[in-house]
């Protein structure tokens, strides 16, 4: 669940508390972001155990190197998502390369395609979770609940025109997941935040 209106002040305070070595801050950080981190890692890796490991590595990284996050560069949430994506993709690449070296099926190109695909999927997840709630709600109704845009408008209590606008805008945001950049770099991950 995304907490609305979290001021950047929270991010700054959190960074300071982590730097100070406050264990309670680590717990709070986990409570706020673990499901985001785990979800993204799982989307890239498709494996519960591997996602657990990446989740551990992400929080260990933040705890051990709190200074690598600079609150002036953007929200902690986007930064964590980018870090997760990077660590998850690294892990995917490592395990897939090892499988290939052991004579597993596929080619290097297959591997690259798989990595690219996983990166885009994770970025898309992040975009959906971070987009304004009204857009997400419209997409949820039209796609998952198979409502047409007029029904969607009625469900949301908005005009037909507004429902069309939300669906289009939501998809436009989502489409940016395809836009290459450094995989997992904050601009790509944070663009929709």
């Amino acid at each position, binding site marked *: *669940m995304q907490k609305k209106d979290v001021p950047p002040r929270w991010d700054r305070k959190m960074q300071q508390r982590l730097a*100070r*070595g*406050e*264990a*309670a*801050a*680590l*717990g*709070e950080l*986990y*409570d706020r972001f*673990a*499901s985001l981190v*785990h*979800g993204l890692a*799982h*989307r890239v890796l498709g494996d*519960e155990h591997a*996602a*657990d490991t990446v*989740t*551990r590595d992400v*929080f*260990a990284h933040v*705890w*051990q190197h709190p200074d690598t996050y600079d609150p002036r560069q953007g929200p902690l949430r986007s930064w964590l998502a980018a870090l997760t994506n990077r660590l998850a993709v690294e892990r995917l690449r490592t395990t897939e390369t090892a499988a290939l070296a052991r004579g597993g099926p596929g080619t290097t190109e297959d591997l690259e395609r798989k990595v690219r695909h996983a990166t*885009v*999927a994770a970025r*898309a*997840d992040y975009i*959906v979770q971070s987009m304004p709630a009204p857009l997400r709600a419209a*997409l949820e109704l*039209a*796609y*998952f609940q198979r*409502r*047409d*845009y*007029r029904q*969607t408008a009625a469900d949301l209590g908005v005009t037909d*025109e507004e*429902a*069309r*606008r*939300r*669906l*289009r*805008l*939501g*998809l*436009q945001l*989502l*489409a940016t*997941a*395809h836009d290459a950049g450094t995989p997992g770099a904050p601009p790509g991950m944070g663009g929709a935040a």
Partner: protein
Amino acid sequence: MSGRRPGPYDDRGTLAPGPDALPPGPEHQVLKSLLGAWALAACAPAEADAVEEHLGVCGSCADEALRLREAVGLLQRPESLDLNPALRTRVLETCLERRPPRIPVPAWATAYDTETARLDALLQDFGDNEWHAPVRLRWYEGDEASTRRTTVAGVIAHLMSVDGLVAVALGLEDPLGDVRPERATPSDRTEAYWRAARFPPTRAVRGPWREQSHRLIRTVSFTGSDTGRMTVPYGDFALPLHDAMLDRAFECWVHAEDIAEAVDYPYDPPAGRHLHEMVDLAARLLPVVLENRRHHGLAAPVERRLIAAGEPGRSLRLEIEGSGGGEWLIPLDSPAAKGSAEHEVAHVALDGAEFCRLAAGHVPPREAAAGQEGDREAIRDVLLAAASLSRM
């Protein structure tokens, strides 16, 4: 995309102006606004036809349509919503090993930290149906089973009101605000909070409850070991801070189970070492409770010579099986006496989670013990005393 119309692109991939190309006009604006709905197959058939016809002649719309269709392919059901609660402990432990904290969470507060996090994870995906699901709180009062109806949100309000006792003792803000309960007991505070609200509690209570629990953990981390000796008044009694935090962890678990049962979710007992601490707290409280009950004629009077403080006395051996288990010798005749294996007069064996449910007033005392032998009156007294530890 529909294959009904000839493609708009020539073989160099640029838009070929078709014979029926329309200049962008009002029609273009309307059809463009439909592209999202069209990509999601969420418009009327006539509209879809009109859009597809337009795509054949409008390059910019065709580009966008392709892009949005591809985006639809990226919509995925969120997976693995349920994060394994045990992962939290593992992750935090790894982190703290790699970089020992300068300000640790005191050992006696980790059960509370873990249990509040587990409950919060349970609440994570609750919709309004779950938040308003009826819950029946159960406890023992005067050796009789008592109940009180509320909702899932009402239970969280209850936890927040009572956690507030610890907050107040630590000098933090009271979640009750200006509401003044008759007495500062857990049930009076809860009833006062419920009464003062203009509407029954909703999911909105989750944030304040969670923020307070985080604040408590943070505060006890800073005030450190000194505050462990500070006491938290509960109205009719008081507990040292570290026991109060353990008590709050216990209540959090017990009520999380009530909630899980109400919405038909599975919920595990606490980790072994936390369960052990909870059993230990109850076992330490039992001698005092027994004495109180004797004063009120609720437990068998003691016919014995006076026992000097610290001397071994008649004891009941409480054997807790399973994860978090162990053995406790409960002195029966005086809280000042020392539990003694040599003076054991009765033995009760019980699963740890089951013992906690007894102490929570969720199991009738008479049905609680799996195995019992020895002085039946002593066993009855101890089981009733355990149930009397429970409250709303």
